[in-house]
């Protein structure tokens, strides 16, 4: 009985052997239209083109002018600096809501230290960035140690930091709004307009794009982040230091939110306790429109940048049309839904893709 089974199996095996030896022409790596469509950012690219076309028709020449471009690029740059590390976290399988209060808290940090207490501006800059890193560290450690969902942990720190900021501001300065006068060098580097229109934060955004893009696509850490978002247990078993990686990613998003808060204080020459709440959902919207999977494991920097641009074009473009600005949220809501549906479609296409020539080569 046993030997009969064995004979059959060896026969089957020698058949498959021949298939194995069959020559296969190597896959060409030249970019094709098909390969382009399977890119994860395809959905967000189409979305951005669509909203840009829409507003260039309805927004008229003002939207297309240099000033019009500056208005949405400025918004995109601030949102983009926050959205990129938030997107990395989402690819790794986590959410960070605390950016919404880290941003005004670091604004207040620099304004109180350099504006109210007249310390050197560099002290304020370092303190506000350090504050962002510290909150990120706390988020990361809490998520790693408690194993609670990052949504809950960062929701808690969102409120805790907001309360802390408000309480300390009132105790230290007696006010919820503090003026700041920056040294010219700090102003030039961190909070100025170029040509009277374009914020310097646009350049910082490009720098963050380059950094995050390198990290995700070209360094080994990109592989770790994707693997951790895909299956954190398998990733840990494969030797990835998932705890340290998680903490580092939360620290990056804390620092980037703090950077935006700090540069806003320098730009507007003042800081307010209540700024920044809009960044919580706006950053998530930009990242999700950009094709990042909410549950982690999939996403790209190009997609996040496109998602950020799409969001900014809608939120600013509406002012150039004859429509009431209140409609912008409706458009963003519908757009978010469409973008996610489209991203799902493109992801399925990428998954079901099989090279054609082999299908033919098989007997």
């Amino acid at each position, binding site marked *: *009985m*046993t*030997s009969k*089974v*064995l004979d059959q*199996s060896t026969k*089957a*095996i020698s058949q*498959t*052997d021949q*298939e*194995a030896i*069959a020559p*296969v022409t*190597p*896959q060409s*790596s030249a970019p094709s239209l098909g390969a382009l469509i399977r890119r994860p950012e395809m959905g967000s690219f189409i979305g951005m083109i669509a909203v840009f076309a829409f507003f260039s028709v309805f927004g008229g020449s003002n939207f297309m002018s240099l000033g019009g471009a500056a208005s949405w690029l400025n918004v995109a740059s601030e949102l983009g600096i926050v959205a990129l590390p938030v997107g990395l976290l989402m690819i790794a399988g986590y959410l960070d809501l605390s950016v919404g209060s880290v941003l005004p808290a670091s604004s207040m940090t620099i304004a109180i230290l350099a504006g109210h207490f007249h310390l050197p501006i560099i002290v304020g800059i370092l303190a506000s960035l350090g504050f962002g890193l510290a909150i990120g560290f706390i988020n990361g450690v809490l998520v790693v140690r408690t194993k609670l969902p990052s949504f809950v942990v960062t929701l808690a720190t969102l409120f805790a930091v907001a309360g802390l900021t408000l309480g300390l501001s009132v105790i230290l300065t007696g006010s919820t709004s503090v003026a700041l006068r920056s040294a010219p060098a700090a102003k030039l580097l961190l909070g100025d307009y170029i040509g009277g229109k374009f914020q310097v934060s646009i350049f910082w955004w490009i720098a963050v794009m380059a950094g995050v893009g*390198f990290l995700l*696509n*070209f*360094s*080994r850490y*990109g*592989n*770790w982040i*994707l*693997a951790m978002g*895909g*299956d954190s247990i*398998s*990733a*840990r*078993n*494969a*030797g*990835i230091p998932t705890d340290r990686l998680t903490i580092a990613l939360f620290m990056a998003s804390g620092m980037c939110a703090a950077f935006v808060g700090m540069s806003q204080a320098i730009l507007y020459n003042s800081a307010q306790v209540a700024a920044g709440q809009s960044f919580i959902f706006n950053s998530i919207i930009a990242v999700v429109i950009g094709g990042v*999977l909410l549950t982690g*494991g*999939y996403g790209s920097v190009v997609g996040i940048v496109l998602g950020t641009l799409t969001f900014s074009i809608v939120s600013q473009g509406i002012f150039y049309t004859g429509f009431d600005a209140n409609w912008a949220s409706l458009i963003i809501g519908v757009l978010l839904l469409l973008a996610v549906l489209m991203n799902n479609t493109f*992801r399925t296409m*990428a*998954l*079901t*893709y*099989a*090279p054609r020539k*082999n299908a033919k*080569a*098989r007997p």
Partner: protein
Amino acid sequence: MTPPLLKLAGINKSFGPIDILHDINLEVRRGEVLCLLGDNGAGKSTLIKVLSGVHRPTTGSVELDGKAVAFESPRDASNHGIATVHQSGGTFPLMSVGRCFFVGAEPTKRWGPFAIFDRKTANEIAVRETRQLGITRIDDGNRLVGGLSGGERQALAIARAVYFGASVLILDEPTAALGVKEAAHVLRIILQARQKGIAVIFITHNVVHALTVGDHFAVLIKGAKAADFRKGDKSREEITDLMAGGEHMAQLEAEIEKYMASHDGHPPGSNSLQLN
């Protein structure tokens, strides 16, 4: 006969008051396939978890190459050359084949001051290693793992384990979710791994698959080793009986006979069959 590469002696595992494994003794040698058979709930999964470093045995010892070892973690076990491939393949569906193959051990090359992930090398090695196992459909390392079939994912995971120098390969029901043709392919890969001198532990409840590739068989029932025999010692029916505990099937046959005796020799119809 060569000394065993992996040896379990008197392994017991309890979770609180519940005993899962009782006094398990097993040996597996290089270039040998040990088939671990058993019904659902027989303790196969727990035994794998002990071997792969997820659980530590309550009592008993694990010896690797003659030396006693105690694995701290799955990572520790894999550093000792014990690779476990789960039914799902343990892979990341939304990662490319090349990236997935090298998770945690990425090849890098210098680019100015930076060490960058060498995607080209990663893709080439991943494709080459899986193709060596006869999976010809994978020819582009940029393809997403989620687009592969179940058998191809198993092959990718096995190729990965072999490439990174596993000396003991634990396969947890690799053929359970596969069609006939794909299962045959995975069995063939198991034989290839055996030829390379790897000790394979093949967990299955498919007796045909086990008999096809196994050299040595162990049947687990209720957490204890019920039988331990070598190729050719037992027939397929005997093994199936053993796995199911035997008496269940015998009871069913007896009831059918009883029914036929009381119904003028008619076998029970689909509507009238009422077994206790």
